[in-house]
């Protein structure tokens, strides 16, 4: 058996088409709260699109032209929606216990995507090339320097921040979100907690023997 056949068989077995592209959802998916993850992905797509246009136009363009201002604002508000919907998605999945029934990696990739999104947004803030960016960078440099990271992560270095923002962090976020989506499609939406499950209560402490220490 050659490696292409082996790979094809493994992929077909692990990622069946009806799971990767399902046309039906479980009956318990009845609330709009299940849309929050997809809203996050849509905002991320808009972030990529507006970000590519911004970097093609360049710094002067996004500061001076009205079209540049539009895409600058689109990028900013996409980021606001991205974080807002991602946090609400996190709340929803936390209360659903979305890590259950073999979904640990779904949870882990989601949490990692959230954590990596924070420096991705931060490097964007300090790459704006305006007074806001200067204020943020000058305030943040002390924190990074005191943590001993200033030598490798210099927030006053625009080239480094912009490079990290448009290449490194988007790549990591894309990989994590891609892995997260793949996990969601492989495992499906988590079942609700069974209604007859007894509540978890603390066990009573055993009685101490008389006179014992």
């Amino acid at each position, binding site marked *: 058996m050659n490696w292409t056949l082996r790979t094809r068989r493994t992929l077909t077995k692990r990622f069946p088409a009806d799971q990767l592209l399902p046309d*039906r959802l479980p009956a318990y998916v009845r609330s709009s709260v*299940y849309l929050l993850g997809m809203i996050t992905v849509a905002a991320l797509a808009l972030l990529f699109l507006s970000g590519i246009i911004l970097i093609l136009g360049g710094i002067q363009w996004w500061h001076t032209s009205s079209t540049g201002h539009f895409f600058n604002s689109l990028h900013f508000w996409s980021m606001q929606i991205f974080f807002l919907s991602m946090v609400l998605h996190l709340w929803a999945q936390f209360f659903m216990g979305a890590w259950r029934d073999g979904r640990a990696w779904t949870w882990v990739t989601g949490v990692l995507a959230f954590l990596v999104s924070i420096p991705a947004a931060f490097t964007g803030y300090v790459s704006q090339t305006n007074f806001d960016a200067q204020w943020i960078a000058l305030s943040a440099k002390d924190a990074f320097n005191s943590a001993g990271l200033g030598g490798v992560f210099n927030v006053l270095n625009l080239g480094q921040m912009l490079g990290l923002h448009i290449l490194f962090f988007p790549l990591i976020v894309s990989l994590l979100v891609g892995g997260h989506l793949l996990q969601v499609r492989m495992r499906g939406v988590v079942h609700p907690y069974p209604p007859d499950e007894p509540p978890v209560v603390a066990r009573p402490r055993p009685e101490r023997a008389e006179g014992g220490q």
Partner: protein
Amino acid sequence: MVMVHLGGAQRSLHWHVFIITWANAIVIALMVLVFLIALVLPYPGTGRPVPPDDPGDESGAGQ
């Protein structure tokens, strides 16, 4: 004319040891509100009749 002046000094909500700017408090309150609305609103398409299986689908799709 602007709806909100963003150039002035920020105002904070102060309760015992907790200090939060009004801007952040309002954003968090709005997030909680959006979350509650999302919980109550139905998923789009809920109640719509389920279409029959795709005859070309060999896997007997559907979850």
